[in-house]
């Protein structure tokens, strides 16, 4: 029982980071219909920027996190401008392949600068709590807390501010949004900034727990796609639920069945779900995208 609860706790922690990363992707993929496969590498880059600020420049943990988030938001804008804007109206898989190119570029730049080996960000909150036999480190609790705060703030931003609601307007009807004077280019850039910033935030809070390496981005990118599809395109509650489901599948499958194959469970679940329902669990009907 204790093992089970421990796995559930780990699953929730893992799942809440996945949820935050997937939220960014669901905004970009579901709302702007841009399959940004490089999203996972924005996550990876965020962790490395944070690592660089702490280990090389000697910044404290939280200022580094803030700077990394801002830097990555700018990177997101740049990515949208250079790669996705020219392909906005190109049908088919061209944007996906361009995203794959961006993924390769980001991964290899990081590998060139910091090497292929893993690095570790020193844990800023190493304290341990023992709740009914479940070991919780403060950093792990913090991951969950940050995820909850980020999700609430994002929801408030989209629902309560004018700027935020332009994102939703574009999602619902691009032409209509243009007619009422919304600048689609600006909304696009904004969405990419938010998505990349969120990815960086998730990466920074979880980096002290796991090692960081250049190849982790592709894996996270693939998983966030799994989640976005699990949860339905553009659906924020779907992304949160999907993130938690995937986190739990991995933690429990990895804990009880086989740690080496834990990623297979998540991907297997995706293929299975797509086989039964090609547009995802809560997905709307979509045309050949």
């Amino acid at each position, binding site marked *: 029982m204790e093992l089970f609860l421990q796995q559930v706790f780990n699953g929730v922690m893992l799942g809440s980071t996945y949820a935050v990363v997937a939220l960014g992707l669901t905004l970009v993929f579901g709302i702007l219909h841009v399959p940004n496969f490089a999203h996972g590498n924005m996550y990876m880059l965020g962790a490395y920027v944070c690592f660089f600020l702490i280990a090389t420049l000697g910044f404290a943990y939280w200022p580094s996190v803030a700077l990394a988030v801002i830097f990555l938001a700018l990177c997101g804008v740049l990515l949208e401008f250079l790669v996705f804007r020219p392909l906005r109206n190109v049908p088919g*898989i061209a944007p996906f392949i*361009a995203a794959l*190119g961006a993924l390769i570029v980001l991964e290899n730049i990081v590998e060139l600068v910091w090497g292929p080996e893993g690095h570790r960000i020193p844990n800023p909150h190493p304290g341990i709590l023992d709740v009914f036999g479940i070991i919780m480190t403060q950093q792990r609790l913090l991951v969950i807390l940050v995820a909850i705060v980020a999700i609430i703030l994002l929801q408030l931003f989209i629902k309560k501010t004018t700027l935020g609601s332009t994102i939703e307007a574009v999602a619902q009807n691009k032409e209509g949004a243009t007619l009422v004077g919304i600048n689609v280019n600006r909304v696009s850039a904004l969405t990419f900034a938010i998505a990349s910033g969120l990815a960086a935030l998730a990466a920074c809070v979880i980096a002290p727990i796991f090692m960081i390496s250049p190849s982790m981005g592709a894996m996270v990118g693939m998983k966030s796609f799994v989640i976005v599809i699990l949860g339905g395109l553009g659906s924020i509650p779907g992304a949160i639920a999907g993130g938690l489901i995937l986190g739990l599948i991995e933690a429990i499958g990895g804990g009880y069945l086989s740690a080496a194959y834990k990623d297979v469970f998540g991907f297997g679940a995706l293929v299975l779900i797509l*086989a039964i329902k090609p547009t995802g669990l809560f997905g709307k009907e979509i045309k050949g995208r």
Partner: protein
Amino acid sequence: MMTWLRNNWFYLLVLVVALLVPLFITNRYHSQVITMSCLFAIGALSLNLILGYTGQASLAHGGFFAIGAYGVAILTHTYGWNFWIALPAGALLSALIGFLVGMPALRTRGSYFAIATMCLGEIIHLIAGNWMEVTGGHNGIVGIPLPSPITIPGVGQLTFQSQAAQYYLVLFFLLLTLFVMYRVVNSLRGRTFLATAINEDLAEAVGINTFRTKLLSFVVGNFFAGLAGGIYASLIGSISPSVASIAMTFNFLMYVLLGGVTTLAGPIIGAFVMPILMENLQALKQFQMIIYGVLLIVVIIYFPRGFMGGYASLRDKLKKKKVGA
């Protein structure tokens, strides 16, 4: 006969040059590069059938290449099968898994299909790396025998020890693949592939069973991917899970897109030009992947039809000029 010659002299010339290659390339290393290019051209051609002619971005292509490679490696090395039985077996295994996996995966479309196959590729990669008893885990399999000699009555034995013999072996399979692809895409069946690629809903409306069309293309494509993988395993002599990695898929994708998607010559040109280009950019080796990535983005934005597309539009322009004058 004469008109046939006039129309096809260029292809004939290329064929003659291809047959004479071992005469003027004696350097072992260069010969190896060319043989591998021919091999990867088979893989690129098969991806092109799925990606170009049927419009389905399969990102599990490296995985199916690896299934063929592991199939031949396990059958010849572990079970001692004759290569000439193991090779079709490996390719058929790849096609069979393609069929089983294509059934669910091909129900999805566009980016969804790309993501689903990417996950499948990753699953194959993970299995190759973790199924110790069969695949040898991360160390892979070493000591895979070369293709078994063929005895030709009255002539003697054909062995595959020499570089030239290996080159001809691969060239034979490249020509075979090219021939099959040519026949397929120029048949009525091939037209249904293209119709599915261009507009799936419309194809469905005129009575094409698009699911079966996509499945057929996927299975045939993966058969040839497995074939290329099987030859690769035997010629290189050792394999590791890296043959199933996304980097392998990415290479094939690169060759197809740079050479020219939905053309028969494009993937072959891509498979020859890219490795040779990279050989000559040895100094930039560490930037290789970055250059690849940037190139991919630039090509997809500005030259979506690759080299062959650029060539075709140039030819059209020249023709128009001639007509105008």
